[in-house]
C-alpha cells in the first residue's frame, strides 16, 4: 500500500473506507472521510484501489518588472508551505512562483528569483555550507539583485548571518528570515516576517541582518544586526533579540513602514567583496565550576578556541596551565562571557590578569557565538599572531561595540 490508496478496515463491527497515509509504530495510519487520522493494526487493513495522482493547482503568477529585483535564497527554513489535506503532508515551497502564490503581497514589493543551494534543518548547518551560501549570495548580488532574502531555520540563523556578515562586504541588504511557527498554520509568523524582510531587502541598507517579529504581537518586525543578535527564546515569535544594542531598524505591519537607525550601514556604502575562507577547527566552550581541566586536551587540535568564561571573563585557576599550553602550541584563545551582556575585562582581577599574561585575547563585548564565527573567519584570513589579535579586538562588522551604552 502506498500513500493515497483507498483502503478499508473494520471498527466496532462496521466497515469503513479510508485513505492510506503511512505506517507508524506498526500501525497503518488512515485518513477517514471526516478528515481524522487513525492508527489501526496493519493486518486489519484491506486494499481497495490505488490512489489517483492529484495535481496541485497553482494560479499563474505575474511579476511586476518595474519593481526591484530581489533574490530569495532558501536553505531549508520554510517561508511558505502547503498542506495536502488528503494526506496531511506539509510540503515546503521554494520557487518564486510558489512563494508568491502563497504570499501574494510579496509581488507588490519586488521581482523575485529564487535559489536553493541546499535544504537542511538549521541545526545541521556547518561552516562549509556558510561558504557555499556566501558564494551563492555573492553571485546573486553580482547578477544584479537589489536585495537578498535568505530563508533559514531559526536554530542557527544567528550563527549563519554572522558568518555571512564577516565573509561579505555587501552594497545591498542581506536579510535572514525564518519563522518560529510553521508556515502551514494560519497563525504562522511566516507571512509577516517574509513581507517585512522583503521590505527591508529593498530599503536603504547595506549590511547583513535578521528580520523577525519584534514582539509576540503581529505589530512590527525588528531588524537585528547579524553580529549582535541571539535567539533568546526556544519558541516565542520574538525570540531574536539584539544584545547590548538596539535593533538597527523596524518595519511596522501591515503597512510595512520602515525605520532604520542612524548607524545602520546604507545601501552602496560598501563595495561587494567576498572573503570566504573559514577555519573550521574552532570551538566554543563554557566554563563551569568543577570543569575537568583534562577536557581542554580534546581541544588541542583546535586552531581557535572561544571560552565563555564567568563574569568579566574568568575561568578557574586549575585551567590556567592547560590554557598556557594551548596558547604556546598556537591555539588562539578568545575570552567572552557567559553573562552574554556586558564587556569582558580581564584587568580587574588576578585570574583575569593571569589569563592576559597567558596570551588570552579579551573578546570585548562580543557574543560568544559571534566570537566563534569571527575566529573561524579571522583564522581563515591570516596566520599571523599579531594580526589575529588585532582583527579579533577590532570592530569589523558591528560585533564589538566600543562603548557600553546605558539602557540596553
Amino acid at each position, binding site marked *: 500500500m502506498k500513500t493515497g490508496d483507498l483502503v478499508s478496515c473494520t471498527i466496532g463491527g462496521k466497515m469503513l473506507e479510508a485513505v492510506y497515509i503511512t505506517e507508524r509504530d506498526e500501525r497503518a495510519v488512515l485518513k477517514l472521510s471526516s478528515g481524522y487520522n487513525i492508527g489501526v493494526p496493519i493486518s486489519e487493513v484491506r486494499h481497495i484501489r490505488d490512489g489517483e495522482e492529484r495535481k496541485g*493547482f497553482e494560479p499563474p503568477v505575474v511579476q511586476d518588472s518595474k519593481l526591484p529585483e530581489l533574490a530569495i535564497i532558501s536553505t531549508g527554513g520554510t517561508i511558505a508551505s502547503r498542506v495536502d*489535506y488528503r494526506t496531511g503532508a506539509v510540503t515546503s515551497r521554494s520557487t518564486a512562483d510558489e512563494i508568491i502564490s502563497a504570499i501574494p503581497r510579496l509581488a507588490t514589493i519586488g521581482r523575485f528569483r529564487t535559489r536553493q543551494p541546499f535544504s537542511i534543518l538549521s541545526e545541521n548547518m556547518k561552516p562549509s555550507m556558510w561558504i557555499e551560501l556566501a558564494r551563492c549570495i555573492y553571485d546573486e548580488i553580482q547578477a544584479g539583485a537589489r536585495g537578498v532574502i535568505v530563508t533559514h531555520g531559526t536554530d542557527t540563523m544567528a550563527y549563519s548571518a554572522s558568518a555571512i556578515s564577516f565573509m561579505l562586504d555587501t552594497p545591498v541588504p542581506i536579510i535572514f528570515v525564518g519563522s518560529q511557527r510553521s508556515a502551514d498554520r494560519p497563525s504562522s509568523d511566516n507571512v509577516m516576517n517574509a513581507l517585512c524582510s522583503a521590505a527591508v531587502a529593498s530599503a536603504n541598507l547595506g549590511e547583513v541582518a535578521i528580520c523577525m517579529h519584534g514582539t509576540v504581537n503581529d505589530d512590527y518586525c525588528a531588524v537585528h544586526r547579524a553580529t549582535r543578535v541571539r535567539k533568546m527564546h526556544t519558541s516565542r515569535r520574538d525570540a531574536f533579540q539584539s544584545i547590548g544594542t538596539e535593533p538597527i531598524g523596524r518595519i511596522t505591519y501591515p503597512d510595512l513602514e520602515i525605520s532604520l537607525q542612524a548607524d545602520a550601514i546604507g545601501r552602496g556604502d560598501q563595495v561587494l567583496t567576498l572573503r570566504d575562507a573559514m577555519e573550521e577547527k574552532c570551538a566554543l566552550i563554557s566554563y563551569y565550576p568543577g570543569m575537568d581541566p583534562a577536557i581542554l586536551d580534546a581541544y588541542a587540535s583546535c586552531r581557535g578556541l572561544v571560552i565563555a568564561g564567568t563574569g568579566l571573563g574568568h575561568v578557574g585557576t586549575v585551567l590556567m596551565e592547560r590554557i598556557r599550553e594551548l596558547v604556546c602550541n598556537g591555539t588562539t584563545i578568545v575570552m567572552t562571557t557567559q553573562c552574554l551582556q556586558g564587556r569582558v575585562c580581564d584587568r580587574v582581577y588576578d585570574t583575569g590578569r593571569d589569563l592576559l599574561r597567558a596570551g588570552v585575547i579579551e573578546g570585548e563585548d562580543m557574543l560568544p557565538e559571534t566570537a566563534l564565527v569571527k575566529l573561524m573567519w579571522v583564522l581563515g584570513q591570516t596566520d599571523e599572531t599579531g594580526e589575529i589579535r588585532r582583527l579579533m579586538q577590532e570592530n569589523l562588522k558591528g560585533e564589538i561595540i566600543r562603548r557600553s551604552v546605558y539602557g540596553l
Partner: protein
Amino acid sequence: MDYKVLGLTAGIEIHQQLDTAEKLYCRCPTILRNIDERNGEIRRYLRATVSEMGGIDRAAEEEMKQMRFFSYYAYDTTCLVENDDEPPTPMNPEALQITLTIAKMLLMTPISQVHTMRKMVIDGSNTTGFQRTALVAMNGIAGGDCAIESICLEEEAAQRVTDKTFSLDRLGIPLVEITTAPCMHTPEEVKEIAEYIGMILRSTRKVKRGLGTIRQDVNISIRDGARVEIKGVQELDLIPEVVSREVERQVSLLAIREELRSRSAEVPRGKIDVTDLFSSTKSKVLKKAPCIMAATLKGFAGIVGREIQPGRRLGSEMSDYAKKCGVGGLFHTDELPAYGVTEEEVAALRERMLADDGDCVIIVSGTEEQASCAIRQALKRAGMALEGIPEETRKMLPEGCSAYMRPLPGAARMYPETDVLPVEITEEMMDAIKLPELLTDVAARFTEELGIDGALARHIAYSDRLPTFEKAIAAGIKPALAARTLISTLRELSRDGVDCGRVPDEMLILLLVRVNKGEVAKEALPDILRALAGGASLEEAILSVGPTFSVKDLECLIEEIVTERAEFIRDRGMAALGPVMGVVMKEVRGRIDGQIVADILKRSIEKVI
C-alpha cells in the same frame, strides 16, 4: 405536524467540557476567569492557508470577508501554549482516560492509535488558527437503539469577548464531542437521546457543570429539505422546540419555492445606487448612510415579508446574509412604508427601480463597499429561495428560532498535529477502566437504601451536590436532612442571590453533623449558610444566629417557664404542651433543635402534672 410524513431525520453532537486538573495540551488549570483579571493582551492576524486544490475552505472563505485581526486576553492561569508561542504538551492522560470511560459506557470501540489532528478554524477562536482534535473511539450505541458514530477529544476554543477579542482562559479545556447517527425522527426523541447521553457523561463524575459547559448541536432535515445544523443549544428543554421550528421553516421555504417558481420570479444581477432618493428622509438609519443600494426582485412581492418561523420572514434570511458585510440589515417593500420611510419615498423608489406591483424592492445602507457587498449577499440568498433550502450552519435564537451563521463546512480541513505524538490505546487500558455507576442507578439506590422519594433521589443524583450528599451520608447525616439542605435550601438561597458555591463540602458536612447532634437548629440553616457564603467561618456563622443553647441551658429555661406556669399546666395537662412550647420557642428559636425542646418540655410537663 406529522414528522413521519415530513420525513424528519435528526442527529446531535454533544460537546461536553471535562473537569480535569490541567488543560488538554498544556499544564494550565481548567478554570474560567473574569476578563478584568487579565494580565496581558496579544494581537494577531490569522489567514487561511491555501489548500492543495488552490482553493480555500468554504467556511474559511466566509470568515475572510471581514478583517482577521484578533486580540486575545491572557491570564496568570494561561501560558505560552494558549498564546501559540510554545509547542503543546503531550495529550493530557487524565482527559484521555475520561474519554475512554465514556466510550466504554457507550459500547464504543477505541482507535488503537489515536492521532491528534489540526482542524482549521480561522474565526479567531483559536490562536493557532486550528483546533486540536483526536478521534478516540467509534461506533457505539446510546439508549438501546441510537447509533453513536464517534467520540472525539478536542480542545475548547477561546471565548469571544467582543467581535474580534477573545479570552484565553477557556482555550484548551478538554472537550469531548459525541456524534450520533441521524437516527432520531421526532423532536421528543432528540431530547431523550440528548438527555441520556448527558446522564452518561455526568455519571463519570468528571465533567464540568454549569452554564456553557455542555452544548448541543442539532442536525435536522426533512424530505426534499436540506441538512441544517443548529449550533449552541444549551438547554435540553428547548431541543424539541428548535427541531419543530426548523421543520416549520423548511416546510415554509419549500412552499415559497413552489410559489416563486409558479410566478416565474427572477433575481437580478445588478444593483442601483438610490442614495439621492433619501436625501431628506426621516428614517434615521437611511439618513446617516453614506450610500444606499437597491435591487428589484421580480415576482417576489409579498413573499419576502412572509413568515417562515414565528417572527422570522424570508426577508430575515436575506438580512442575515447581508449582515455579513457589516450592515445593520435590509429594508424591503413588503414592509414599507415604515421605520420613517414614507409612502412617497417608496413610490419614488419603485419608480426608479422599475418595480411593478408583483415585485419587491430591497434596499441596504452603509458605506459604498458595505452596501454593494450586502446587496450581493441578499441577492445570493434570494436566488437560493428559487432553488429550495440552503445547507447551512445556523445559530439558535433565544426562543428556538434560528439565524444564518455560515455555510455548512465542507469536509473538515484537517492535517496531523505533528507537535503531539500519537497515543496507543491498548486492550489492557480498556479492560482496566471501571465503569462508573450510572446516575439513574444512583437514584434508584438512594430510594432503595435511604428511603428517599424517587423524584428527590433523581434530583440529588443529577445535582452538582451529589458528592457532598454522598459524603454527608457517609458521615452519618440523616438522608432527609442532607437532601433537604443540599437540594432545597441551597436552591432557595441561590434564588435569593446567595451563592454557596464556594462553601467547601467539608464545612457543609461539619455543619450538618452539628445539626444532626441537635447542637444547631435545622431552622437556623438558611441564616448560617448565608453567613458561610459571605465568607464567615463555621463558628462565626453559627454564632451569628445567636449564642448556641446547650441542652442544660434549655432544661433550666424550661424548668423556669414550667414553674411559672405550673398552675396553667396542671389545669390543662398535656394539652398545655402546645402553648408552653410556643413560649419556649420564642426564646430559643434557631438556637436549638425544636424536637429536643419538645422532648424536654414534654418530660418537664409530665413531672408537673
